[in-house]
């Protein structure tokens, strides 16, 4: 596994609430970094936008729900807020609004993933 110096700072720059994360990870930065490096695989296995666009809304919602839980625990606040909105809008039947947010979210998500991959 690569050197992780700077990973936490990069995440903070992208909106992560590091204080909240450290509280949850009991100040174990190594564990937090290790778990951050698991995120790309989680996102890869649970695509949302693709299922949205293919019309499989159940899978899109299920994946959005999974990601919401994971990014929440990693304190990636902007992503967590977005996925919370996507899940709520899907449940309310506001699919076009949910899709619009998902398109923007994927951009942020890709940026976060590319930053994390630098340290892997």
């Amino acid at each position, binding site marked *: 596994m690569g050197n992780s110096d700077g990973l936490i700072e990069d995440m903070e720059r992208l909106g992560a609430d590091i204080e909240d994360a450290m509280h*949850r990870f009991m100040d174990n930065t190594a564990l937090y970094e290790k*778990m951050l490096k*698991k995120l790309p695989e989680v996102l890869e296995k649970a695509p949302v936008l693709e299922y949205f666009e293919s019309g499989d809304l159940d899978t899109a919602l299920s994946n959005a729900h999974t990601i919401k*839980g*994971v990014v*929440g625990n990693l*304190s990636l606040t902007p992503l*967590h807020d977005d996925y919370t909105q996507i899940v709520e809008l899907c*449940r309310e039947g506001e699919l076009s609004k949910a899709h619009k947010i998902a398109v923007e979210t994927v951009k942020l998500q890709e940026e976060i993933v590319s930053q994390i991959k630098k340290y892997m």
Partner: protein
Amino acid sequence: MKNTILIVDDQEINRVLLAEQFKDEYNIIEAENGAQALKIINENKDIVAIMLDLIMPMMDGMGVLAELNRSGKIYHIPVFVITAADNMEILSSAYSLGAVDIISKPFKMVFIKSRINNIIELFRHRNELVDVVEESVEKITLLNSRMIDALAALIEFRECESGAHVKRMRAVTERLMTALGILYPEYAVDRVTVSKIGEASILHDIGKIVITDSVLKKTDKLTPEEFEVIKRHTVGGCDILEQMYRDIMDGETYRYCCDICRHHHERWDGGGYPDGLSGDEIPIWAQVVGIADAFDALTSPRVYRPAFEFDTAVKMINDGECGAFNPKLLQAWNTLIKSGERFSEK
């Protein structure tokens, strides 16, 4: 030795976070889906808590909760549902399936640790109490059984009936009660109740112990006055039970004993004694013992006649020669006989 917590979540990140919190105090086992979780639960007896994600592949959290309900494990192991959902319908379903608490994502670790530790401690106390109560119930059941055995021995000692008669009565009563419930669900009772009724049947003639030998053991035909004395064994039996056992026997068994003692000579058409009850006024367990007692009397030798053959006795019961019985009860009786039941022929 450390107790074990099972963490069930398809996402490793969530599992690791929870495991980190509890790894110093507990052994941690992780499962990625519901099916894996159930296998682990069945193989590990020292699991003191389960943290269970709801949305998972293979088998979801609701499926695991349903299975834990079915097996009864939900009453012994606290289950905490992990969810990022605030959907009230889902959370209500989880609670109604026995979840004790919800762990919301993102995790708030300080609260989670306290809540989980508190509930594990509560369940530990509760499980200990359940063990104590079960042990007490076992002792009371044994005591009941011993009391009934003691009275049965007394009946035998007094030469009212033989020990073999008492054993046959119990066997016939239990088989007939079961067969009746299968044929006619309105009379169905569970297996424990059947066993209690069988036990109570042993005491059906307890009242005979206070009848004088000159009447009880008379070999000649009884006078009408003497027959009235014999009839009193029904009410007399209840008096004995009331004086000796009302306060110490469990309420249900006591009721069966009294009903059977008093009413096992009642007949369906009201032609029996002591109260002349008819139809379903006669408790069904007393009706069952009534037919069992009549049959056993027919197939047992008396000083004034030999025992009737099995088939003859069956015919006499059906022909109403021992009084009228409930047609449904006769139907169950004949079904048993046709299935080859011989009631441990003498």
